[in-house]
């Protein structure tokens, strides 16, 4: 289903129209002139960076934006080239994408699906963006992914951790580099069992919306498989700012582990409250009481301050990784901005490079060609025998060997299990990597029940 031969008819006609100037207005519809939505016709190509700039995730959004700007610099051959130097695919030359200079527009998702779609639409309709990327929550990712599918542009998801993004809400035009709730559970559970023992009773506090539920489901399944017992699962309202009434009953419940399926502000507050209530100083069932935060982010960990010390969780990537690619990226980002990048920044940078590389290899911006280049390959991750182990395999972007799987457009790579550092040397040095869980261990089949329902559908070039 390769569609790399793109007609240049549209280019000619638009060029002619522009050339005719004011003399004769030419009327045409987008669909009849271009082979696909927003086909770039000039010397530049426009990417749309849609990140939260207001609301609680604004700082994360700002970091994503920094990464995007860095990626654009590197694609256009400015700066030190960053991970272009370490990326296993060498298609990109530092002269833009397909010889077109990369430009970008930015927008504010406000972490609301409506606002995110509005801003993505404006990039597509007004600015002619050929690809939309970014975001800091799964609701937004799913909503914008749906939009991009309808509109016929590519969506490279930013930070989105819900199983649904590449599960029941997966779309042919959408791609996720970030890991997901299932992977967090699969990576974290063995470490938890090793550190805290197999005879544990867990109490879940879960943010009462889609992401929270998939997170709870995943971690619950993974820990129960290792022998843990789940004492209780409690849903907390998204708008909750104080968790005292949810934390207070935990000590008397007979549980000896508290799992906080919270993210962002919810996580900061629930963790702060839990430590306040002295949970971590207590002995229950003859064991030390423990707290687990399945999805960590360094930016948020900073908000939780001292409270994160010694607490286990998982993360997509961390700047202290010592592989060549990570070191290159940290150096490049750190030199430009003065502090190390967050995992959101890393994912967004990678997504931009991956998209550019796919276009370059496909020789076209046509979304269908890009999809083919990004996931249509036959290479596979070593050590996993599965029908579905097929897609685009790459390395050198910081997570080791990574597979963009064709079946659901999800990346498979090593997952980091991290712990809040006891003696940080700087304000960035908050997490330490406990274990790098190999991709094989977090592998699942595309028809896994947690990801069932929904289908990719056909790629949509929008014309």
């Amino acid at each position, binding site marked *: 289903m390769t569609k790399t031969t793109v007609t240049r008819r549209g280019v000619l006609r638009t060029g002619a129209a522009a050339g005719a100037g004011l003399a004769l207005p030419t009327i045409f519809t987008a669909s009849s002139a271009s082979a696909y939505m927003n086909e770039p016709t000039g010397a530049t190509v426009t990417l749309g960076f849609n990140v939260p700039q207001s609301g609680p995730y604004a*700082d994360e959004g700002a970091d994503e934006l920094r990464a995007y700007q860095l990626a654009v610099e590197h694609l256009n051959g400015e700066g030190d080239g960053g991970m272009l130097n370490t990326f296993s695919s060498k298609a990109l030359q530092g002269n833009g994408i397909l010889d077109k200079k990369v430009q970008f527009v930015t927008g504010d998702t406000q972490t609301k699906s409506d606002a995110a779609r509005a801003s993505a639409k404006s990039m597509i309709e007004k600015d002619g963006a050929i690809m939309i990327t970014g975001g800091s929550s799964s609701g937004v990712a799913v909503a914008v992914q749906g939009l991009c599918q309808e509109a016929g542009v590519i969506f490279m998801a930013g930070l989105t951790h819900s199983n649904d993004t590449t599960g029941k809400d997966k779309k042919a035009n959408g791609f996720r580099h970030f890991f997901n709730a299932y992977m967090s559970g699969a990576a974290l559970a063995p470490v938890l069992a090793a550190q805290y023992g197999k005879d544990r009773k867990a109490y879940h506090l879960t943010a009462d919306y889609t992401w929270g539920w998939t997170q709870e489901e995943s971690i619950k399944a993974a820990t129960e498989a290792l022998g843990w017992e789940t004492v209780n699962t409690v849903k907390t309202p998204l708008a909750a700012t*104080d968790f005292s009434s949810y934390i207070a*009953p935990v000590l008397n419940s007979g549980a000896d582990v508290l799992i906080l399926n919270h993210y962002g502000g919810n996580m900061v507050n629930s963790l702060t409250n839990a430590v*306040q209530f002295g949970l971590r100083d*207590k002995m229950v069932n003859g064991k030390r009481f423990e707290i687990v935060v399945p999805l960590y982010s360094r930016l948020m960990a900073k908000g939780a301050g001292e409270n994160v010390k010694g607490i286990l969780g998982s993360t997509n990537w961390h700047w202290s990784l010592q592989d060549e690619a990570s070191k290159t990226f940290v150096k490049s980002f750190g030199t430009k901005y003065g502090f190390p990048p967050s995992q959101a920044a890393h994912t967004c940078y990678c997504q931009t490079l991956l998209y550019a590389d796919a276009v370059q290899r496909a020789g076209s911006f046509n979304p269908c060609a890009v999809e083919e280049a990004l996931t249509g390959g036959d290479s596979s991750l070593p050590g996993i025998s599965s029908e579905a182990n097929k897609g685009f395999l790459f390395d050198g972007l910081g997570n080791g060997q990574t597979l963009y799987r064709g079946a659901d457009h999800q990346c498979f790579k090593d997952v980091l299990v991290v712990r809040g550092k006891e003696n940080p*040397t700087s304000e*960035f040095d908050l997490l330490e990597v406990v274990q790098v869980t190999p991709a094989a261990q977090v592998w699942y089949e595309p028809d896994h029940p947690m990801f069932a329902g929904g289908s990719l559908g056909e790629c949509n070039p929008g014309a």
Partner: protein
Amino acid sequence: MDAFLLQILNGLDKGSAYALIALGLTLIFGTLGVVNFAHGALFMIGAFCAVTLERLLTLSFETIDPTKTDFLGNPLKVKTPYVESWFGPETGAAIIDWSVPLALIFAIPVMLAIGYAMERGLIKHFYKRPHADQILVTFGLAIVLQEVVKYFFGANPIQTPPPEALRGSVDLGQMIGFQANAIIYPIWRLIYFFFAVAVIGGVFAFLQFTTFGMVVRAGMADRETVGLLGINIDRRFTIMFGIAAAVAGLAGVMYGPLNPPNYHMGMDFLVLSFVVVVVGGMGSLPGAVLAGFLLGILESFASTTWATTTLPGINQIIIYLVAIIILLTRPRGLMGRKGVMED
């Protein structure tokens, strides 16, 4: 029983925050007749007074530690706060440790000044304007204040931990004869509750027992008459606005250690505190306090597992549900006066 007591404590604690904010809102409303949508922002600014003070106290100079490296591989710059070099590491560290209680002292003049400036500079011109205009201008102000804070401090929450000695929790259950771990409660939350009671008591005593307070109360009841008596009531009301701002600010300072402050915490409380004020009854100070604690306790009980399994989602809607029931059975809230804000 122990679970019950625990939720009562939680409720009182939540209620403390609601009551303090609602008290300030009612003071402003009762004295000036202004619907202040920027009140949540004042609460937020209070919390950021603590953040600012902590930043000031930890202003540091840098020395280079060649044995360690930073994330780029350069020699690590170690920061030493000036206070530590001036007063010695121990005293200096203690001062930084106690920055939240110190921030109370810092916040009072700051908040009074902000309140005073707000009233004289802006609110004054809106006494005679419709409530809708007051809402619009104070809402605009709230956005501006919040964005300014975001500009300087970012959007992420910032920890303002309590002093080392006041961290952690006490086993209240054991003190009154339950078994261990039955009722464990964080020290700072207990402090917060007593602080709230003290502030509320202070405001009531001030209004009840000082001449100033008596004039203000008379003015709340009948502004014109008091004005006719030749008393400059406006001036006193300006001061009351400052006091209301200070109450909100102090509530914010003390709230920081419970949940790390962020720039939009005021908006999170705004709607809730309006519900509290109205449920208490417009213009009634005791009503506001009563409603604050009542809603706090009900919210706590609604979030118990028992409640959420009986009625899924009850924890999300309880406050609004109670507000509806109360307003339908008691037309002017719990203790509202007739004719206030009914048209």
